[in-house]
């Protein structure tokens, strides 16, 4: 299937919060677990989202990849069930659970039918609280991770991302891939995984969102059974990264016809007082629509690429402002030149009143479109909690977009945009560099 534009690779953090139509209720279980709930009894199932702050950044020194491999092993045998028995049990309930580990969190996204919800939750409890980490399962999943790592080493997008992170984040965990390296993953032991599990899945960094066919009372009881056995505290979360990005171009030679570029500079954290003006500014510059300046100049007018995007990336421990583009090796130099010029134009001229109006209309109008399904809403609600946005954020979010003025954007354009410090990592055989 050939979509006209690839979905932007990164959802901006502002794409996470919810909208005025959703009625969120804060629930505290008898055991003291707090969750946000949206009740909807129209379809007999529920979505449950759990997030544990820290993620792969919790890896102990020399144990890179431990949290990622641990997360991949949670449902590969738990309690009295080995990997295959566990999978059969989950299938017979038609429940689904997805696990993921990122730089900032471990996430668990589950779907339970109402008819067997308690059994499904009991099965999930085993995976979270009693994973077995059987040696044969460790070897099997380790080989899958290593296979993925070998593929990443030959993928221009992954090469670009790794080179940029290594340059920008110094000795912080963000500087390296949370999946680990071929060597570090090969060396991980069962003890390392047990320690990673103990450090990552703790109640002091846990956030819960639930949507669907369940009442507050039922949810409280479910959460106490599901999560009550997890340890109270986990491993310390590292401090912020010292982000250093200097202007320039780094070419990583790779024999492939289309060069892939990742570019970036320092950004604003999510709690920066000018985050909303920056968010609106970025929408105008390269926020993903066909109408952005970068799409207009690089794709629509010149046909230099299929897609070019920019995005604010305020992670928990560092904030950067990033972008990506891909062009044939003999055309990438022109694409880079156009992007640099747009970066400088934004820094010096800001945006026009018409651009600001159009951006606000889009951003406020598009807000409700994000609420398409139980799982999506559960995910949004946990992200809101992690970002400390408050349960009433929903009602005021569009007002914050509306309140952005031309002066605000001009101030941010002068302060945030650093055309001289914009660094490009280009993977391929680009001509002209």
């Amino acid at each position, binding site marked *: 299937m050939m979509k006209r534009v690839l979905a932007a690779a990164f959802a901006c953090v502002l794409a996470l919060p919810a909208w005025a139509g959703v009625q969120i209720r804060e629930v505290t279980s008898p055991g003291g677990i707090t969750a946000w709930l949206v009740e909807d009894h129209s379809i007999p199932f529920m979505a449950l989202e759990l997030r544990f702050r820290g993620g792969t950044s919790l890896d102990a020194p020399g144990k890179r990849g431990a949290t990622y491999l641990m997360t991949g092993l949670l449902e590969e045998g738990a309690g009295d069930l080995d*990997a*295959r028995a566990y999978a059969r049990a989950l299938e*017979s309930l038609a429940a689904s659970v997805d696990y993921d580990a990122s730089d900032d969190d471990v996430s668990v996204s589950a779907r339970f039918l109402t008819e067997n919800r308690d059994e499904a939750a009991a099965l999930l409890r085993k995976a979270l609280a009693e994973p077995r980490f059987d040696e044969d399962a460790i070897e099997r999943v380790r080989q899958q991770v290593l296979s993925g790592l070998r593929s990443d080493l030959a993928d221009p997008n992954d090469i670009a991302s790794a080179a940029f992170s290594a340059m920008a984040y110094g000795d912080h965990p963000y500087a390296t891939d949370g999946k680990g390296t071929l060597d570090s993953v090969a060396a991980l032991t069962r003890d390392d995984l047990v320690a990673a599990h103990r450090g990552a899945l703790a109640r002091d960094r846990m956030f819960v969102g639930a949507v669907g066919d369940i009442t507050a009372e039922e949810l409280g009881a479910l959460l106490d059974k599901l999560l009550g056995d997890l340890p109270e505290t986990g491993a310390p979360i590292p401090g912020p990264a010292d982000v250093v990005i200097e202007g320039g171009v780094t070419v990583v030679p790779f024999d*492939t016809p289309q060069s892939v570029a990742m570019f970036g500079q320092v950004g604003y954290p999510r709690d920066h007082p000018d985050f909303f003006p920056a968010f609106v500014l970025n929408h105008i510059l390269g926020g993903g629509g066909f109408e952005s300046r970068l799409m207009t100049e690089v794709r629509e007018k010149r046909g230099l690429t299929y897609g070019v995007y920019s995005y604010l990336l305020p992670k928990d421990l560092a904030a950067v402002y990033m972008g990506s583009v891909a062009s*044939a090796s003999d055309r990438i130099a022109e694409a880079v030149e156009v992007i640099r010029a747009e970066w400088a134009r934004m820094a010096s001229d800001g945006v026009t009143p018409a651009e600001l109006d159009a951006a606000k209309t*889009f951003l406020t*109008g598009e807000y*409700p479109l994000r609420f*398409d399904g139980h799982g999506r809403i559960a995910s949004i609600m946990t992200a809101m909690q992690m970002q400390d946005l408050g349960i009433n954020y929903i009602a005021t979010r569009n007002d914050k977009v509306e309140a952005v003025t031309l002066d605000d954007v001009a101030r941010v354009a002068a302060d945030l945009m650093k055309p001289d410090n914009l660094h490009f990592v280009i993977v391929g055989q680009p001509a002209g560099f």
Partner: protein
Amino acid sequence: MLRSLALGTALIWGSALSAQTIDDAVTTFQLGNGMDVVVIEDRRVPVVQHMVWYRAGSADEPVGESGVSHFLEHLLFKATENLEAGELSATVAANGGRDNAFTSWDYTAYFQRVAADRLGLMMQMEADRMVNIRLTERDIVTERNVIIEERNQRTENNPRALFSEQMNAAQFLNHRYGVPIIGWMHEMETLDMDDVMSFYRTHYAPNNAILIVAGDVDPEEVRRLANIHYGAIPANPDIAPRVRSTEPPQTAERRLIFRDARVAQPYVQRSYLAPERDPGAQEKAAALTILAEVLGSGTTSYLVDKLQFEAQVAVFAGAFYRGVSLDDTTFDFVVVPAPGVTLQEAEDAMDAALAQFLIDGVDADQLDRIKMQLRASEIYARDNAEGLASRYGSALTSGLTVKDVQAWPGVLQAVTAEDVVEAARAVLRREASVTGWLMQAEEAMQ
């Protein structure tokens, strides 16, 4: 400028999907000019998905013009008699909506997702570009560069995608499914205004299109708006039944090796020519759908059990079948060998497991679990109006009817263990198969 209707309005979440099953939420009718309409009600959020699907895709292209259907899809975002280039997308964005389009072998589809009270405006613009595009030579040159970069990004930069193209080309001896949707590069480079306009005039008409509206809508209001905007376009009397070259009997097993220095993880792939879902006759496709689940979809499936758990010769094993297709489709296997295991050993292990499966048959408990999951998927599907819209759009452009779509869950539940084994015996014919090895370049192997 309009502000979103949702702003500041405290809508009650959970005011419920009115229908208790998916079918109850679906209304279908036809306009006087032959345009089919499917309305899927989901009243929980004041949002609508508006889609127009054409019964024309890359397998309907003339010889020598591969990629023209997808190229045209891009160019439908340029000017019309009534809209400037880019104005349609800009108008959708100005109404707080998102729009896009996609092309496959059997269809091309355009959609907007927007506040439900903007449906009429969306229809007005979509109907306009069905018959009124006005392209310039500059559009052709610039946008052709864009689709060339799209091919660079999706295919030329990705050895797995290049390998997959070669597999398809070898599988189909005489059918256009053997040509990539995006086109072969050397033909894309020659696509011109005449190619594009000829495809447009041949295929874009209300009587070759399906309107699908999913979300917070009333079917009678959709009928009224559709009659105003689409009903005004006359049917094209020259729209002809889709006639495609068909496959001759496939009598020779094909094998290929694709080498590329960028390959980091070699694997073996096998595809077999397979029947698709046919109107009123979906039983074989249902058995193949369940066969793919039985053989290769996750930890409990037969191939994973044999190759990953028992013999430990693979890090991944999977089986795939796509039953929604106008003409014959494929049933596919992928095996990624474990370190130290050759592609030949991995392939041999896969073939031994498949042979053993035909002896063992289907485990009754496994079949029960698969059917339970299929039943549950119909409950989960009610939470996703966009997914339901695409279910109808892809089926109706692939020769199926609304009745077939609604019968499908029941057909799946009726499949027996014997049906699955019989389907496997019928499809797993080596003379109708292609086996491919994706490998590192020879110098990289030393």
